[in-house]
């Protein structure tokens, strides 16, 4: 199965990365060879195998319901591109 330009454009929209046609074309080529390589997995018969989602040999540990974090607004906003002291600022969404 081939990955065409239309697919690349769709994927780039989903991942919020803009791509010019030239770059998109090259990416399609790269992805096609990578997916050819990945197709090797089709050699295996694995319908009855359980998928492995976590390799950590332990169970999910709980945390108690205590408020531990203080107001660290300054730290939180320190690295943001705008200098608003209360909010993160972003361009408007187009509805």
């Amino acid at each position, binding site marked *: 199965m081939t990955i065409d330009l239309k697919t690349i454009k769709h994927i780039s929209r989903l991942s919020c990365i803009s791509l010019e046609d030239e770059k998109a074309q090259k990416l399609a080529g790269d992805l096609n060879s990578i997916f050819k390589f990945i197709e090797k997995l089709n050699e295996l018969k694995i319908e009855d195998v359980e998928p492995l989602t976590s390799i950590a040999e332990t169970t999910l540990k709980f945390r108690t*319901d205590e408020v531990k974090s203080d107001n660290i*607004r300054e730290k939180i906003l320190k690295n943001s591109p705008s200098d608003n002291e209360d909010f*993160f*600022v972003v*361009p408007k*969404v187009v509805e």
Partner: protein
Amino acid sequence: MTKNNHEFLITRKNNHYEVVIGLEVHAQIKSNSKLFSSSSTKFGAEPNTQVSLVDAAFPGMLPVINEFCVKQAIKTGIGLKAKINNKSVFDRKNYFYADLPQGYQISQYKHPIVGEGKVILDMPYGQKEIGIERLHLEQDAGKSIHDIDPENTLVDLNRSGVALMEIVSKPDLSSPEEVNIYIKKLRSIMRYLGTCDGNMQEGSLRADVNVSVKKKGEEKLGTRCEIKNVNSIKFMQMAIIYEANRQVDLLEEEKTIDQETRLFDTKKNETRSMRSKEDAHDYRYFPDPDLLPLEVTNDFIDSIKLEIPELPDEKKKRFIEKFKLTPYEATILVSDIETSKYFEEVTNNSDIKLATNWITGELFALLNEKNLEISESPISSRNLSKLINLIKNGTISGKIAKQYLK
């Protein structure tokens, strides 16, 4: 249990249409800290003052699950007479939005913590059972504020990461009135359990409403549309009425209904399509690799069962038997846990019949007028008992008592 509906139909010329409604209710869990981080969940704080590094999705930050939130979800599941799943999985729901700092929401997709259950509605025409499909845990998003800055959107992440229970009903609701009773019942159950305060003005309870229509008697369901994020019962009802009529109009004109997501415009009282990009809703769910499957033992679940108080349905049964109330009276008195407590305190010390009448009559009228909750009642249960006793033994007349209350 009868399924006899006082039918809600939309009629055009000779065609009668039934409305099929399913609700996805988002209920904020009552807890001190968030689902995967230890920031406070208190309502009304200054913007971005209840945000941790994890909430703001800084590089290298990781989720750690709040045990109490898990218990609250299980408790709610028990209150919905639902199956509690010993194993459930957290999945990432991937999409981009300003109030979603991670670029994904941690939710549960294929394996939720709670499975099928039911809620019984007391309708005027009898009881109706509404099926619950599932309940799962997920993170709430932050808030985007569009109307402070004309050029930009401001983002407050205080709410980002607060624990939500998403309660999905089966498409068993048939009318705006049933939706009203359903939401109130859910609210009541959760308030009894202490798992959600159900405060819709503060946003602790919101719903996505799924609406479709079909010709009366037809088996096959119509195409449904989802109306997102409706935060009051009144708006839900208005949205349903508008949307059902819109769909019926389309069908009458032999046009197709597009399956889509819509918003309810509260100013214009209409639903409109969200102008979103095609395929924007491919959420690419996959199990969150920063977490492990959630495993709860039967012992864990049983210990939570011990914490369940008497729930509305059981209390109603008991009130009818013990106090010889009518189903109608009982329904009113158990709908809110504080009310039922107040009632029992009063009846402990005074005449039941009088107590019933005075509480459901004069007291409720007074509270409504002054917009107070029963917990804020100007007259305590003790004092109301005393008042009622005075009436009973003839010391004062009903009229004087009424004046006293005012």
